């Protein structure tokens, strides 16, 4: 068993339980042990528009807490993963900023040393566990299902700070899906945004983005959409109905977390994967 500290972020652990449940079910099967830690906080990215320094501090704080565990940090949320990666990038290259942040961290007896690695669901599956290992556990292949992948902006860009996937042609989710027996296909809107971060101040526009992308996925004839980020899932799945109303279309796209599909292919119990919490018509798919 290889150990990783789990960083749950805000959205996953306060509402996107399907992601957390499926993660906690699937990874032990793949030989990954997740360590829970108290004391984490928001990564800061959702309030970067208000105060960038606050974002940097919150990210550094979480990294400092993770460092104390001595394992790499598993960050399932793309937005958090971006924030922590950018923070690392800044603090590892700017000694002045690092000592300034460390002065503030001292009040909670924390220190950022730059020693913790940060991984996301996608690279944990593809690079750490590997497609070969995943294949070994497939009991119910997702035969005949054509799945669209949605990587989410924060996971793919900007390549300058180092992202787990290629910025223009990410293919790791496809590789995992194919290992599960599903079909994949490139589509023009693959890299389009879910609109999620605009929900806080411009919900109409945010939902329009969501609706437009779901319409495209339907038009391409996909059987479903897969996500790897709680922000994206809460748009495509939790708010699919609203998104449909916003773009005046009846949307019926089954949306899954990648880890839920893994669980299904591994033959795990749907309930334990939190599948009943998906609000999109996932029953449409007979897996």
């Amino acid at each position, binding site marked *: 068993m290889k150990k990783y500290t789990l960083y749950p972020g805000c959205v996953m652990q306060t509402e996107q339980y399907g992601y957390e449940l499926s993660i906690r079910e699937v990874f032990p099967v793949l030989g990954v042990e997740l360590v829970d830690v108290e004391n984490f906080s928001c990564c800061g990215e959702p309030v970067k528009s208000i105060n960038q320094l606050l974002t940097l501090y919150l990210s550094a704080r979480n990294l400092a807490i993770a460092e104390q565990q001595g394992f790499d940090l598993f960050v399932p949320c793309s937005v958090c993963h971006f924030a922590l990666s950018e923070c690392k990038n800044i603090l590892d290259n700017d000694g002045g900023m690092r000592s300034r942040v460390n002065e503030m961290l001292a009040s909670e007896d924390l220190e950022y040393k730059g020693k913790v690695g940060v991984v996301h669901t996608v690279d944990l599956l593809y690079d750490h566990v590997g497609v070969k290992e995943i294949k070994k556990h497939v009991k119910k292949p997702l035969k005949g299902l054509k799945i669209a992948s949605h990587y989410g902006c924060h996971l793919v860009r900007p390549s300058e700070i180092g992202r787990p996937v*290629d910025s223009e042609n990410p293919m790791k989710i496809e590789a995992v899906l194919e290992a599960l027996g599903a079909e994949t296909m490139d589509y*023009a809107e693959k890299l389009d945004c879910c609109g999620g971060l605009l929900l806080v101040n411009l919900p109409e526009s945010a939902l329009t983005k969501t609706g437009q992308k779901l319409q495209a996925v339907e038009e391409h004839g996909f059987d479903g959409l897969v996500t790897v980020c709680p922000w994206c899932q809460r748009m495509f799945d939790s708010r699919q109905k609203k998104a449909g109303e916003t773009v005046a279309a009846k949307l019926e796209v089954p949306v899954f977390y990648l880890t839920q599909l893994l669980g299904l292919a591994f033959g795990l119990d749907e309930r334990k994967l939190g599948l009943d919490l998906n609000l999109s018509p996932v029953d449409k798919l007979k897996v």
Partner: protein
Amino acid sequence: MDRIGVFVCHCGVNIAATVDVDEVVDFAGKLDGVVVSKSYKYMCSDNGANLIKESIKKFKLDGVVVASCSPQMHEHTFRRVVEEAGLNPFVLEIANIREQCSWVHPDRKEATEKAKLLVKGAVAKVRLLEPLVREKVKVTPKALVVGGGIAGIQASLDLSEKGFHVYLVEKEPSIGGRMAQLDKTFPTLDCASCILTPKMMDVKNHPNIELFAYSEVVSVDGSIGNYRVKVVRKPRYVDFDKCTGCGDCVNVCRMKGKVPDEFNMNLGKRGAVYIPFPQAIPLKATIDPEQCLFLRYGKCGRSPACQDVCEAEAIDFTQREELVEFEVGVIVVATGYDLLDPSALYEYGYSRYKDVITTLELERLISSSGPTGGEIVCPSDQRKPGSVTFVLCVGSRDETVCTWCCRVGCMTALKQAYLLREHLGDDVEINICYTDIRSFGKRYEEFYRRIRGVKTNFFRGRPSEVKEKKDGLTIDVFDTMTNKLFEIKTDLVVLVPAVVPRNDSSDLGKILHVSRGADGFFLEAHPKLKPMDTFTDGIFIAGCCQGPKDIQDSVAQASGAASRAANILSKEELEAEPLIAFVDEDFCSGCATCVSVCSFNAIELMKKEDNKYVARVVEALCKGCGSCVAACPSGAMQQKGFKDDQILAVVDVLGGEA
């Protein structure tokens, strides 16, 4: 030397504004061995030179220090001055108090102190200098031209016209290069082959030009005046003398129509035996060993069809590659350019969508000798495009790909827009997405105006991506002229890719000892004043191997390079640089460390009478780089003009120990 003169230059205000020249003169005058110390406003002027000459005679000087600009600028000037005054030119030392002092230090007091130290160091070195003799070397009055594109062709013709023998080496089966792939040329719309093929014929027919096509330079030794060149002639598997270029073999090849045709940018197919294009020089068939069934499997039908059909009995599967050696006095490098593979910018869809092509691919589609016989069609379905959209600066002026401007992209797109209008008529929609139109050459701006007049839609903005939707290719482009985002639905997207160095330019650079810039293009010795010279004497560059340029500039530079090369070839002998390495045999243990570090093969081991080995410097090959001197563990290897004691004298001064 103990009668040294020091001459300090003001260089106008370049030195004098920061360095107290009078103080340096006073200081120098009191140094051991110095008998006269003077300053002048411009020491490199006639009056300055006369001041030095008169002082040498009047004070019977035996050594000279000039404190002025970098030795790169005027060392040769002052060597000549002291020589004219009757001294050996190598008893001179330059103290660089401009580039290494006045230009880089703001504080006058500190700069003056440093200038004094630099002068003191130079004086200390001059005291230990010895007169050196320049050896004479005979010049081989022949030239090697590498690359048979328009630049290499022009350089070869110019040099051969001047009466010199030229070896022209071309990697491909035919000369002609990129220009042979073009349909028409901007801004005159001359047919590229119509103006190129006469020159190619001239190359073939000129008695002074020896053409090595389908050959590559594999090694170059020696130095200016005498380079020893090895060339590998690749086997064509066709007897060069017997082949008449009739093309019968091409027509019957069992692989006909199955091999991607590189001359047509892989848009068409050729056979295993092929002639790249109808006007090829030499007009000889070539068998591609990677594709030929007989060469790969030892079997091709009952017997190879090419062999059966060839009346001249020219097919020869037993051919092997052949090594040819010759000597030349100079080398002109004209190896051209590659286009960036646009899949580097994945967002533009080049590798994903068939109907996203490059300008060079479109050039082959327009050409009547191209894969479609001049029919302009979309590669995906062979249908005539109703709309064609150009995207300029693909990878050019881009900090993440190629930082430079390709210098031909704008004009190429404008020219192709014109040709599309001409070929496809009034109905075709032509869109050009540009960042800036750079129509800088003679008559280019006029051409740009003309294209604006043939119903061309200019969008001033760079698309972010090319998408394939169910109704075809779609480009969103924000046009900063109208301040609006436009969606262009189009049939054919033509990318204008960056111009990049040839993919083998790094290897060739190593073979020739020619350095390359950060961009990978061969580096000129001076961007303004020596644009065709390299840092290796006797080797010149022309055309796009030095940097992107259009045909007219390539031709001009090629003629320039030929003329620079002829300056050397027209001399019977040259004076060799004496600042080279030499061995003190008493200290040499024959360890051969020097042999291994020498990049010029200029050191060999020699067996002495007592059966011990010592190193020996081949003076004609040594470039005086100093690597062996630094590497020698025993101090046996020394460099004339930079001996250990001479350098250490300077170090002692600068380190404050003398």
